């Protein structure tokens, strides 16, 4: 099997970083997964909550807002900006998390 080759620009870096072990991996994955799952829960509660609202609160969801029913307005128009907001928050936090993890691995304690 053809093994992938490491990027040539930093050939010696791994051996210089004793922190890159199973413990560091566990820390990385735990922090990143916590962030991803939090955002996913927020998204899924909106996505899976809307059918439930339609099911249990049909009169409220059929109420007119302009010409739209409330349910149509949420799903057909407002849902997109809500998801963009979640993704924007995720990316900002994810970048900050990666910067902190890199600093930690390089021994740059705050």
């Amino acid at each position, binding site marked *: 099997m053809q*093994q992938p080759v*490491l990027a040539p620009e930093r050939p010696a870096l791994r051996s210089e970083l004793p922190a890159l*072990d199973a413990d560091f991996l566990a820390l990385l994955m735990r922090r990143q997964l916590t962030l991803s799952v939090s955002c996913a829960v927020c998204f899924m509660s909106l996505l899976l909550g809307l059918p439930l609202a339609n*099911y249990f609160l049909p009169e409220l969801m059929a109420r007119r807002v302009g010409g739209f*029913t409330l349910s*149509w307005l949420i799903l057909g128009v407002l*849902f997109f900006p809500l998801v*963009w907001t979640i*993704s924007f928050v995720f990316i900002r936090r994810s970048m900050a998390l990666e910067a902190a993890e*890199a600093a930690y691995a390089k021994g740059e304690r705050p």
Partner: protein
Amino acid sequence: MIDPWILSFSLVTVAVTVAMGFWTAGKSKTASDFFVAGRSVSVGWNASAISGEYLSAASFMGVAGMVMKFGYDALWYPVCYACGYLFLLLFISGPLRRFGAYTIPDFAEGRYDSPLFRKIAVIFVLAIGFLYTMPQMKGAGTALAYIFPGLPYWAGVVLVGAVVTLNVALGGMKGITVVQAFQYWAKMFAISVPLFVVMSVYGSYSTHLGMNAAEGPVPAVAERLPLPEKAPEDLAWISPFGPLTTKAAAAAGIPPEGRRPYSLLYTYSLIIALVCGTAGLPHILVRFYTNPDGAAAKRTTMWVMILIGVFYVFPPVFGVLGRSLLPDLYSATGAKGTDKVVLELPRLVNERLPVWGSILSGVACAGAFAAFMSTFSGLLVSMTGALAHDVYGRIFRPASSQAERLKAFKVSAVLIGAVAVALGVQVEAFDINFMVGQAFAIAAASYFPLLFMSVWWRGMTTKGAAAGMLGGGLTALASITLTSFSDLGYIPLAGFWTTHPLLRILCEQPAIWAVPLAIGLMAGVSLLTRADVPADIVKKMLVLHAPESLGLRQEYDAEHAVAAH
């Protein structure tokens, strides 16, 4: 009779696509250019290209037609098509890019050190790709038949297939990146400008939606033609749990008040299929390898969500306006029915502003062309990559030179293009949404669980991954095929479905059980075979998750791989 405006705009789209293909062909020189666009595509270009590739004929024409036909329930399609990218962003795009493979089978083999698993992954890339290609071909055939009345269906398929295959063979991934980015903006223009003109003449989105009264008299704020018998009633159309999701329960003779639980189940299964399927489509996933790094892959995903989210606001508006202004479309089916509302609606403007209606319809036709051409391009690159890189370059000729791999790419593109055209010619009788649904359901039950579990669980083994991917993907395919063949009359199950509406829903929309089945099989079999977890799993997972600045990133660089062999 051929409308000269529609013909002109469509020809311009094809001409620009071909010209851009030739222009970019000169810039694509290395294997890396062809497979992953030199890994140098900026966030803006890549987001436009991914969006251009993703917005297929089903999105451009099908969503509007479905909203017109089924009402509220069809809104889940555009919303989940767009929001599925959030799952990609949260769980898959960054780690996948960091792993540095060329294709998904590269990832499968690299993650599990299993050449056998590469072969399984290649089969799935080709299977999902061909399933997704067929509806694009159907779109091409029907759109050309609309432009040239009397033109046989197969001629449109062959023409579009040949043009796109030429483009891909000439420029590879780097070439189609520019073309697809252009095609996103062409589609955005083509869906929005005609609609704004139609709304300025005939009334707004909310005005026409407001005419679908749940109770009482219809407000006479804009003109509305009488609905034919085949059109759903206002209340059923505008409310959740309408004709799309209650079909099985209604066929079983269940009274309206008892249908809602079935409808809720159908809705959830549809949501899971579309969201997880989006995050598991190989031709979309392969695009993330063209980003310079994982951070760029994440930013690209966010911009894709914005670009396609803005786009998906428009097709439902066509559906809503079409219900008021073109109710005759309810009486026909397939390409002659509600599916062509995007192409037909702008023509109405001719009544008030002569010629402008034809020009706007021409613009919409150009958008439809851009839709099936760009999606087919992306699928072709993805499948060609699987054949040229995974089958030829990795399985048959691992020591091949870069020049040989480039030649293999071009030969594979022509081969896959020819097969796609041959299959496309056969599917005239099939429904576009049926074929798209098959591809999504299989992707949701195979690639999505594979990627999600491989990225986030260290304990996954090759056997677990293969069992889950095959178990989920094949059972989803089998159940969808069962319902479809039964609907086409090949299997006599109509009586069975009317007495078992729950089974009918679970077979027609299998994601709600197939995705958990795939994940469960992966977890269960991996636990039983835990001794097979790759020895260097910590290193592999660090490559997937550690920030790029630590220098762990891998690259399947053709030159280095050949040198190292």
